[in-house]
C-alpha cells in the first residue's frame, strides 16, 4: 500500500475532486501560489488555474458567505479558513446562514459547502493560533463536523464531506500534517458518521479525536505493559456521531476515557460522556474520565503550552484512574 502524509492525503482528495468535477472549486487566503499557510493546496493552482483555485482577501465572513451562495447555486465550493481561530469571524455565516437555510426554506435549499480549517498546539503560536474549537460547531443543527486524525481518514472523509449536500466543517490538526500513513491505492470514500476502532481492547475504551488519537494509542501501548487492555475509538465525524460503535465498545469494556486537545470544560468529551452514561449506565464500572486542555487561553512559552495541553501520559493516568475504581 502507498504511503502519504496527512497533508498529501488532504491534497489528494482536493485534487481528485477538482479533476473529476467542474462544480468543485477552492478558495481561501493564500491558497493559490503559496499553497496555503500549511502548504496543503500546493500545486493545485498550476493544475487547475486561478478560476478554480482562488486567493481571497482577508474576509472570513465573505469567504464562507460566498461559498454558501455558490453552493446554493449548485457548486461544491471548498473554502479554507487559515486557522480555526478565525472561524469565529465567520461564525454568523456558518451558524445563522449555512446551517439554517435548509430548514428556513422548508427544504428548498441545500448548501453543499465544505469548510476546511486547521488548528492545534505544539508550536507555541500563543493564544490566537492554536485553539481547538470543534465542539462549538457540534452544537449547531444543520452542520456536520469532521475531525480527521490519519492520512487515510483525512482523504476518505474529506471526499465524503465534499460530496455531502450539507455544510461540513472539516478540522485538520496542524501537528499531524507531516505524519505518514498507509492509504489505499485508490481514494476510498469514508462515510460520515462512522467511527473507527483503531485498537481493540477489553478493559477501557478511550474515545479520542485529532492529535489525541495518536497520544491515546501510545498510552494504550504503555497500559498494555501493566496488563491493561485498551480499546481506542476515533469517532472521526463528531456530527453526526456514531453512538452505536462507541456505546458498544463501552458496554464491552465497562470503563471509558474521552480525550481531545480542546479544553475539557464544555468540550466534545462532555457530550460523549453524556451519551455514554445514558446509554450504558448499567455497564459502567467507573466514572467516565475526561482528558483535555487546562482551562486557560493557550500560553505562549513552550513550557506552559506543553503543560496546558494533554499528552499520552495524561491519557495513561486517566486510564489508570478508571481501572483503579475496581
Amino acid at each position, binding site marked *: 500500500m502507498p504511503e502519504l502524509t496527512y497533508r498529501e492525503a488532504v491534497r489528494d482528495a482536493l485534487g481528485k475532486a477538482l479533476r473529476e468535477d467542474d462544480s468543485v472549486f477552492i478558495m481561501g487566503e493564500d491558497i493559490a501560489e503559496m499553497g496555503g499557510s500549511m502548504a496543503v493546496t500546493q500545486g493545485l493552482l498550476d493544475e487547475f488555474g486561478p478560476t478554480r483555485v482562488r486567493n481571497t482577501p482577508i474576509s472570513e465572513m465573505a469567504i464562507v458567505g460566498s461559498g454558501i451562495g455558490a453552493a446554493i447555486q449548485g*457548486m461544491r465550493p471548498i473554502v479554507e479558513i487559515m486557522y480555526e481561530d478565525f472561524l469565529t469571524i465567520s461564525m454568523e455565516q456558518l451558524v445563522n446562514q449555512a446551517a439554517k437555510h435548509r430548514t*428556513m426554506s422548508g427544504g428548498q*435549499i441545500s448548501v453543499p459547502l465544505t469548510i476546511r480549517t486547521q488548528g492545534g498546539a505544539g508550536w507555541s503560536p500563543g493564544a490566537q493560533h492554536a485553539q481547538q474549537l470543534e465542539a462549538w460547531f457540534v452544537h449547531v443543527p444543520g452542520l456536520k463536523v469532521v475531525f480527521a486524525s490519519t492520512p487515510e481518514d483525512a482523504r476518505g472523509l474529506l471526499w465524503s464531506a465534499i460530496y455531502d449536500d450539507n455544510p461540513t466543517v472539516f478540522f485538520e490538526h496542524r501537528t499531524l500534517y507531516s505524519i505518514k500513513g498507509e492509504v489505499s491505492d485508490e481514494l476510498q470514500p469514508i462515510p460520515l458518521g462512522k467511527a473507527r476502532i483503531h485498537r481493540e481492547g477489553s478493559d477501557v475504551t478511550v474515545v479520542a479525536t485529532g492529535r489525541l488519537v495518536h497520544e491515546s494509542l501510545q498510552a494504550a501501548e504503555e497500559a498494555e505493559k501493566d496488563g491493561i487492555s485498551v480499546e481506542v475509538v476515533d469517532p472521526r465525524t463528531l456530527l453526526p456521531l456514531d453512538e452505536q460503535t462507541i456505546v458498544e465498545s463501552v458496554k464491552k469494556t465497562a470503563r471509558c476515557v474521552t480525550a481531545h486537545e480542546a479544553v475539557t470544560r464544555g468540550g466534545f468529551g462532555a457530550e460523549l460522556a453524556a451519551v455514554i452514561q445514558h446509554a450504558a449506565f448499567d455497564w459502567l464500572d467507573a466514572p467516565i474520565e475526561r482528558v483535555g486542555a487546562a482551562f486557560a487561553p493557550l500560553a505562549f512559552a513552550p513550557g506552559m503550552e506543553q503543560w496546558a495541553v494533554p499528552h499520552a501520559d495524561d491519557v495513561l493516568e486517566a486510564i489508570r484512574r478508571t481501572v483503579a475504581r475496581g
Partner: protein
Amino acid sequence: MATVEERAESGGRGVSEAMLRGFFREMLLIRRFEEKVEDRFRAGELPGFLHVAIGQEATATGVCAALAREDVIASTHRAHGHAIAKGTPVERIMAELYGKVEGCSKGYGGSMHLYDVEVGNLGANAVVGGGLPGIVGAALAFKMRGEKRVAVAFFGDGATNTGTFHESMNLAQLWTVPAIFVLENNGWAESTPASQQLPLPVEELGKRAAAYGMKLIEADGQDVEAVYLATLAAREHALAGKGPVLLHLRTHRLTGHFVGDPQVYRDKDELKEERETKDPIRLLGARLEIGEDEFSTIDGELTAEVEAAVEFAKAGTDPKPEDALKYVYA
C-alpha cells in the same frame, strides 16, 4: 423584464404607460397586503416579528421588474414587498405568515425568512447584512458557468455599517461578479436616525461605492420608473462583465420599524409630511392621473385578492409539530 420594443415605443423616460400601470397595481397590492398584515397582527392572528415596508414599495417593484426570473435576490427583514415583486403569489406569503404548510417556506421561515427558489428568491434574512456574502457567491457561480444572470442583494442604510457589507462589496468588485447591491436607504436603522449611524450625510451614502472602485447608480426610490430604469442599467452593466453595481435608492419608511412600533423617537409632523409628499403610490397615481373611480376599482380587486389570501392561509394546514426535524439535513 421589459422587452426592447416596449422600451422603445414608450414615451417619457422610457417606460410605457401600460407598464407603469402594472407597477401601480403591484405597489398597491404590496401596500394592501402589508396593511392587512398589520391588521391581522393586531387581531392576534399572526405570530412572530413583523416588519412592513410601507412607503418603500417602489424599490421592490422597480428593482424586481427589471430582473429576469432566473436572476436571484436575497431579501431582508422587511421582506414582503420583495417576495411579492419577485413573483411569489400573495396567498403563499400570507400562508407563511400564518405558519402553514402551504406557505412559501412551508411554515419553517416566517416573515423574516420568506424563500421561493423557483422564482429566484433565495430567502429573506433576519440578520442585518447576513444575505450579502451569499449573493457574491451566487454571482460568482453565474460568472464561472458563463450564465447570463445577476444576483441581487437588498439591504438598508443600517446594513452598510456591517462587516459583511464591506467584505461583500470588496470581494464582488475584486472578482467583477454580476451582483447588484440594492441599498434601500430610508435613513433609519430601527430608531436610530442617519445622523447617529452614518458618517456621511444620508443623501451621500452612495459614496461608499467609491471605496471599492464600484460603479454607483442612484435613483429616487419613491419613483418606481426611475428605480426600474436604474436597475436595468445596473443589470446591463453587470451582465456586460463590467462588475457589480451599488444601486443607491433613497426611500422613506412611512411607518414604524416593526408592526406595533410606537415610534416615540420620530417627529410626528415630519412623518405626517413625509406621508403626504413621499408616498410612492400616490405619486405614481397622480402622474398616471388615476381618478377616484378607477382607483376604487383597482383597489377593490386588490383588497379582495388580499382577503382571499387570508382565507387561503387560515384554511391552510398546520405542520405536524414533530416535522420541526424534517429539513435539518439534505
